[in-house]
């Protein structure tokens, strides 16, 4: 692996730290009921979103799932609007109508997250069709979990993307579980990549959660996609530290062991990046990010809830 310069590592660290700390704040505040929707935290999985989004450029877009805080922030989504959205405020990125599961920031290429498993996969493919149709060299990244592999839409979408050689990177964040159901209790064998490859695209599995490996691999694939070589499938093994939905641990449920998660905590990419930087640089970044987070929560607190009339707005676009 090549060596990375300090400025780049700082960038990764800033993005990772921002996501981790935002979600820790969400978890801390959650019991107060200020947050008005369920939250599916990405804590532990941040390196996938950060590694991949760092390999994108302006004009590229991402689609994702209800576990979308990390993707939204890694792609540059507006933090204030995100927290306001979680608070159900009119200043939120969806004017309070979406909540945590429906984040969007089209200016930054965050094209929306969905609470129905697998639904944004074909939409990503259609967006890629539109890009290719218009002669753009932008790329779409479609993020989804291992649960989405079970859905027909996943298979239909890969088939069509390969058939039309569309500019889309499929990213399966395999954290082994769909809620509490292990992927091997849902799949005949551990062959997600083989299945993806069978539709006619390169498929790669990254097992160790290494943020540099994710970044480099994504960068290489995205370059090929940009050159018109068609879709690529990337499976990133990862680990969700918290419960499926909500701010707590869930080891008491007994569906997975603390040990299983502990080995991922040991190789936490946030700690790893921090250790690569000087303590001075780290504290500069952390101070800035902490301030940003404080401002965002204050913004959400101070913002008003939508007025009743807003209920009937945004159903249709008036031409």
């Amino acid at each position, binding site marked *: 692996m090549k060596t990375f310069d300090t400025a780049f590592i700082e960038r990764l660290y800033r993005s990772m730290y921002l996501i981790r700390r935002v979600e820790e704040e969400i978890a801390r505040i959650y019991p107060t009921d200020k947050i008005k929707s369920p939250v599916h935290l990405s804590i532990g999985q941040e390196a996938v979103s950060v590694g991949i989004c760092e390999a994108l450029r302006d004009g590229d877009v991402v689609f994702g799932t209800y576990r979308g805080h990390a993707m939204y922030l890694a792609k540059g989504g507006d933090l204030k609007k995100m927290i306001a959205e979680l608070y159900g405020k009119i200043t939120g990125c969806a004017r309070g109508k*979406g909540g945590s599961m429906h984040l969007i920031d089209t200016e930054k290429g965050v094209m929306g997250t969905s609470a129905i498993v697998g639904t944004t996969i*074909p939409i990503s493919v259609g967006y890629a069709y*539109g*890009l290719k149709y218009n002669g753009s060299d932008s790329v779409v990244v479609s993020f989804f979990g291992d649960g989405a592999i079970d859905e027909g839409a996943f298979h239909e*979408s890969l088939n069509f993307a390969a058939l039309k050689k569309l500019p889309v990177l499929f990213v399966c964040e395999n954290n082994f579980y769909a809620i509490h159901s292990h992927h091997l209790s849902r799949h005949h064998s551990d062959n997600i990549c083989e299945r993806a490859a069978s539709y006619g695209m390169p498929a790669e599995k990254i097992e160790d959660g290494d943020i540099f490996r994710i970044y480099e691999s994504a960068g290489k694939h995205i370059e090929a996609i940009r050159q018109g070589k068609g879709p690529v499938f990337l499976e990133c093994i990862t680990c969700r530290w918290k419960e499926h939905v909500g701010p707590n641990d869930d080891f008491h449920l007994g569906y997975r062991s603390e040990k299983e998660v502990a080995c991922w905590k040991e190789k936490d990419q946030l700690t790893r990046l921090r250790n690569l930087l000087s303590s001075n640089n780290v504290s500069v970044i952390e101070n800035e990010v902490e301030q940003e987070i404080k401002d965002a929560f204050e913004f959400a607190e101070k913002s008003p809830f939508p007025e009743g009339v807003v209920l009937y707005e945004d159903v249709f676009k008036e*031409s």
Partner: protein
Amino acid sequence: MNTQRLLSYPEAIREALNQEMERDPSVIVFGLGVDDPKAILGTTKGLVERFGPHRVFDTPLSEDSMTGVAIGAALAGLRPVHVHIRMDFMLLAMNQIINMAAKMRYMFGGGDIYVPLVIRTLIGKSWGQGPQHSQSLYPLLMNIPGLKIVAPSTPYDAKGCMIQSIRDDNPVVFIEHRLLYYQKGHVPEETYTRAFGKARLLAEGSDITLVGISQMAVECLRAKRYLEEAGISAEVIDPVSLSPLDIDTIASSVSKTGRLIVVDNAWMVCGAGAEIITQLIERNINMQVHRMGFAFVTCPTTPTLEEHFYPNAKKIASRAYEMLYPDRKPWTPKTELQLEEIEFKGPF
């Protein structure tokens, strides 16, 4: 301008597609069979030769995902027309239609998110279509905010509604009954749009209002002719647009006639008829009402049973007679009028 030009219903749709694709390079048409020799009963004939395979293409048998693809393409600035040769197959697309297309603008708070998408879907009956090739499921969709639904019965409205659907910035479900494909009517050559939420008064009358949805509008026109034998004057309305619904036009007709039969081209439970009548009741209109529609069973294949399954002109006429003359003995039209040619030709 040749206002007297006659076109068939599918010709009107094909003309609308051609003109819109010509006008706007972001319009694309796809779906199972759109570029095959039969070309969706001729409605997409010649499009691929004229506009190329990137704008007109067959798809894998993936109704769910191809609907997602249409939504994604719409978000990226295209105006897709996704075609389902039968509405029964569209059931596989309901997740994308209801959970995504209908909701995206709302759940992302408006702004620059919108989904200009047309879903063309064919319905039909007769000649052994049977349980899974005949369904007309618009009541399911009328229940969903965020969708516009049209089911025009005349070639004129078919063309105008198709152009309007393509230009509309929201998801539109465009319902075409196969038997309407035999209809001919005046269709101007130039492009024009047909505003949604505006019903079509097909024929004036004074004794009873007949509202027919999709092909049932034609059955209502035929019923009107039968009723003339019995000295009854029926007013016939095609709602054209089911969502939004033009209740004003129906209300003013019923206020005049005091009697209403709504003939659904579907099962009646929670249907268009139920909706129309409820809205009229909420306006305190003094009226006698009746609903007609499919028998509440799965559509049978054999003609002897199918005959009982669907409403038709004679059944509608007979029911109207009963409404006017509840004390007389039941009446069914005796003469067998040659009414295949009943067409609405104007004026507009």
